[in-house]
């Protein structure tokens, strides 16, 4: 049903969400905008990918959620990083580092 081809590699979205939450708790739209910002506008995360990922990660225990008020006093669901989430971020970061290094090597090889 998801006819939109995802532009993100499997697992990358989790990493970006975790990374964006390091700055502090945020609601969904905030996370989406933050990802846009920190990737220099390369990735635009659609709600259809964002929300399933958020719910899955919350079920994994990496992030937790609560209802709060937005800057304009609207009710919004906020997410924040948990301790296992931080660990996961570290692990994912290391993994990503290895992958990008390896891909870099591969592409440079003649």
């Amino acid at each position: 049903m998801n006819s939109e081809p995802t532009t993100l590699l499997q697992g990358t979205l989790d990493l970006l969400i975790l990374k964006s939450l390091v700055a502090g708790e945020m609601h969904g739209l905030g996370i989406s905008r933050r990802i846009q910002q920190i990737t220099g506008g390369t990735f635009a995360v659609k709600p259809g990918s964002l929300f399933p990922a958020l719910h899955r990660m919350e079920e994994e225990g990496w992030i937790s959620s609560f209802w709060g008020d937005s800057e304009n006093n609207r009710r919004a669901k906020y997410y924040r990083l948990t301790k296992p989430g931080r660990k996961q971020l570290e692990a994912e970061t290391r993994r990503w580092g290895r992958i990008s290094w390896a891909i870099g090597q591969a592409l440079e090889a003649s």
Partner: protein
Amino acid sequence: MPFFVKTRSLLRNLFLSRRVEVDLDHEVHSHLELLTEENVRAGMPPEEAQRAARIELGGIEQVKEQVREEQLGSWLRSVISDCRYGLRQLRKNPGATAIMVFTLALAIGAATAIFSVVYGVLLRPLPYTDANRIMAVFEVNSKGGWSHLADPNFDDFRDQNRSFRAITKYQYGVASVSGASQPSRTAAASVSSDFLKVFGIQPILGRDFSSSDAKKGAGPTVLISYGYWKAQLGSPRDLAQAHLKIDGAVYSVIGVLPAGFHFPSDANLWLPTDLGGENPSRTAHNYYAVGRLRDGVTVEQANQDISAIARRIHNTSSEQGDYLLKDGIVLPLQDSITGTARSPLLVLLGAVGFLLLVACANVANLLLAQASVRGRELAVRSALGAARARLVRQFLTEAFLLSIIGGGLGVLGAYWGVAGLVALAPENLPLLDSVSVSIPVLVFAFLLSTGVAAGLGAFTAARATSGDLREGLGEGGRGQAGSQGSQRIGRVIVAAQMAITLVLVVGAGLLGRSLMKVLEVNPGFRVDKIVTMDVALPDADDPKSKAHQAIFFSSLMDRLKQIPGVRKVGAISNLPMEGGLPDGMFLLMTQNEVPKAMDGFVPLMQQKERLGSADFGVATDGYFKVLGIQLIRGRIFDEHDGPNSPHVAVISQSLAQDRWPGQDPIGHTIEFGNMDGDLRLLTIVGIVGDIHDYGLDAPPRPTVYVNLFQRPRSAMTLTMLSDADTQSVTSTARGILQDLNPEIPPRFRTFSQVYSASLGSRKFNVILIGFFGIVALLLATAGVFGVMAYSVSRRTREIGVRVALGAGSADVLRMVLGQGLRTIFIGVAIGIAGSLALTRTVESLLFGVTATDPLTFAAVTLLLVSAALLACFIPARRATKVDPMIALRYE
């Protein structure tokens, strides 16, 4: 921690789903508002802002659905919703559902019940430690037949083999036991010293036999079963004072075996063999043998080992002849116990498998009919985006629900069915006690139900969801769904059903005809009005005790004759239909040739022209009169044949023809002392009719009968021909025996009980396979009816048009019947071909008919075709009643 979080989320998703949903709804809406707000801030007019936000969000419901799919337990939730939906579907057609559930319950229940018998008898390991390492050992004679072991042969097997950790010989019988709480006839085995080692057990109390217990002249000792120790001896901890009088001799109880241990069969007492010394003959086959294989030795290796020893004996023995072993064989004990029961049980299992197929075919047809009605629903779901896999899953779920409900009911039925089967099963079916609905049987029932579900579900789903479902939207409006394709497949199923049913009913027919043929056999004796009484006196070898045995039986019979209503009394060593008489080789001999001792016979045995073989029975003249066995020539025993007058014998007609063709055997003398140790010659004085004493389906055996009063014996069965009530004869006879010797427990039966028991296994098969055949026939008839009725209802409009165009009711009838007949004939043709191929498997169970008996085939085909035609006729008649006006307007 993560595990805890996950579990909490899963439980939340499953049990607080409403709250999760509300939360999700709020979240998505709030996201939409935030987006709108952002757009407004960016300077869009409010309406434009909202539109842009919705576009970016991409559909509230879709987002929610995507989240739901990611949630933990989403799969489980969808299965539950499939089940709910499935149950709703099943409830919508309560009639069809009830029929399907009942059909499946019947078939799965029957299969489970039969499997529980197969499992209990053939598959369940025997209840001994590492039972698969316990082997039975037999001699193989020159004709390839298996026989028991002779003492010296067993000794050689035991001493020379390299395959067995322990090997033991045993005999088995019923002993008269007193000294316990009351005199009883108890199953007893005599076993050689390593018996317990073979079975890997130790006495729980007392000790095993020591080597001195088994020596000639040792003080008699006995091991007893746990159950006997408790029930008959009152569980004494100290065995020092425990004694039993077994067949007249006093035995010290030296040990109690573990609870539940019984072997052979239901033995409760184990005595040492050879208290009277071994029999030196290599052709006196008196013992069974079992052994436990050494670790790492295969059955194959053990076979080669024993076979080599046997051939060595064969090559070196002085006792050459048909009765000397030529080879040896080793096979797992379980196979040797269940040997003859195997093929009938497998045939039963096959039959119930066929029944299951026929039942599944009916259910498949009903499901298909429903599925084609649901074409519209499927089209709508498919149009709304349901993937084909999802629809297939829905069908699987429904089939699964049906099978599990049917299977559950079936298993409940099987509990009841197994009790019935055990009651119905022939007494000689081995290991009957271990038949029950056990865990492996339940696993079987579950796997069977699941397999049925998978098959039915996959089949219906494949049929219902093939092609472009969306076409259903167009066609559906006309009430003409149930396309040609699904009707064709329905007919294929019905044809297959007919074919399978035919095979099953042919099988039942062949077995039924065999039973009738068996019953037509003249047994050679009378069955009615005979009361039998088994009496075993203390065993004895010395002439004085033997003379006493004769006197005892004589006075017992004199008093039994006095019972009011009893007309005649006789006695025989073994009743017919109970495994027959022992057999052996006799010698034609004249008075002055008789040697003084057994050893002298060995060279005579080499003279083929002297040899004859026959069964050996000990009887009184009354026995022939009670059973109505015909005297053909000469005379039967009379009062002049005393112990000291010349010993006489009566032979059966077949022996006279076999051994003295074209001569008169009367007056000839034979030596048959190897059977009872009495070397006096027997003069043939009469010829009596043959009797089928090995069972009606076995040919009569040549037999020599000797006179009980000349050749006394300790264990006899008395036969009383009586017009009086069995109950009163029995109690009077019991009183008489009590009066003569209170320590001897008799066993009473009527001869007709013995006789019917010999037909038990045949009747068992006929009843069960006949039952399966009838059920399959009903199911197949219902299947034909269902498919034809469905086809007619689907073709109402077409028929209406035909009638409107001038077709008469005869034309319509012919059209519908013609269609049905084609299906039936194809099914019958395949069925006949299948039967010809498959009935060969029941050949060994047949009697008097061939596996391709034309009469059975013709009768069964006729029966099946008429039943199916009847099933076609009802819908066909309905088709002729179609009113074209209504049929066309109905559109």
